[in-house]
């Protein structure tokens, strides 16, 4: 006497069919994501000191501006218009770096009437970035760095690259959980508008050199005259 498996199979395939439909519906609704911000994102000035981080390549790196700058400028005499080129050479001869950044000083000369120094911090290719998945988790170096700081006196400031958006979101959430205010600066890898004084040619997105004047369009983290004042939002 043979077994009739038909009813059992009917039930099985109906169940599988319903599961497929439910999965499809769930995926369609899940493909619309929500970004919930925890505070009103309006830029404002603050008297607190920024603690810098760079979010790039899917991770985050601490940028210890004070220490690196201190090593670049150690033993400098009072900067004047005439000694700026010498000071820049002096700083660059020191090859200042840490495990994340190479640092240098560049002098800008505006037609021989005005000079200023820019402190450039370039993230190393082999910098040991903390990947976004671990930011804010137990043992996170980012959180450890924040815990050395005072949320009453300092705030977290993120320089965010196009491939560091997710790391920035994770880090901002972790910083808020530690009681820190935060701000961010959008920074491309390459400028579209040529930064060369008098050129300002806007080329194609991602171009590394200006098609008009040949100047480099690289946009490292730079501290100098005419920049953005870090604020919180």
């Amino acid at each position, binding site marked *: 006497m043979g077994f009739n498996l038909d009813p059992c199979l009917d039930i099985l395939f109906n169940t599988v069919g319903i599961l497929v439909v439910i999965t499809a519906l769930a*995926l369609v609704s*899940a493909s619309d*994501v929500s970004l919930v911000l925890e*505070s009103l*994102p309006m830029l404002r000035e603050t008297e607190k000191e920024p603690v810098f981080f760079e979010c790039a390549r899917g991770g985050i790196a601490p940028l210890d501006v004070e220490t690196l700058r201190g090593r670049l400028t150690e033993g400098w005499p009072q900067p004047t218009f005439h000694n700026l080129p010498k000071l820049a050479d002096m700083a660059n001869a020191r090859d200042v770096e840490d495990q994340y950044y190479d640092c240098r000083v560049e002098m800008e000369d505006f037609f021989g009437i005005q000079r200023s120094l820019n402190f450039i911090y370039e993230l190393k290719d082999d910098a040991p970035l903390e990947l976004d998945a671990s930011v804010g988790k137990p043992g996170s170096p980012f959180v450890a760095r924040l815990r050395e700081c005072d949320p009453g006196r300092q705030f977290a400031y993120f320089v965010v690259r*196009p491939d560091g*958006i997710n790391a920035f979101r994770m880090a901002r959430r972790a910083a808020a959980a530690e009681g820190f205010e935060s701000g961010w600066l959008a920074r*491309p890898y390459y400028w579209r508008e040529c930064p060369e004084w008098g050129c300002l040619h806007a080329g194609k997105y991602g171009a590394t050199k200006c098609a008009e004047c040949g100047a480099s369009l690289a946009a490292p983290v730079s501290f100098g005259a005419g920049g953005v004042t870090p604020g919180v939002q």
Partner: protein
Amino acid sequence: MARRRNPSAGELVSLFPFLSVLACVVSLLVFVVATVGLIALRNPEGVTLQIPRATAAGVEREPVFVECDVDRIIIYPEQTVVAREDLADESAAFQALLKRVAKEKDRRYILLAVRPKAFDFAQRVIRMVEEAEVGVGSEPVEEGPKLRFQVSDSR
């Protein structure tokens, strides 16, 4: 001697080949759904930005949403497009928006949703908004998905 043939033996239809095909089709469907789902999750159709109306200190502002893309900005909710080179044009919609929001600057501010390819351009837009003495905020959003905005009253 010839054996007697069981009359019912020839009428038995085996369902197994049919079931095999069915099982293959179902497996294929599951595979297709899983693949489509993964692609959908990696490339979401839309992103909804949920913005609280007030700070912890109770300061309330109504955001005016502006999307900052590689060569243009888009002013919401009308989705008015202003090209990068027309931003400073006094007759363009962006300048009109700045003037409108400046009149209500204690109540409103401009929130920029910044696409990755507009990271340099956004700095220029922020500067222009600040020069108009209008409050400004910004939020990075990934390339691709359509944007929707939602203002929530509670934090």
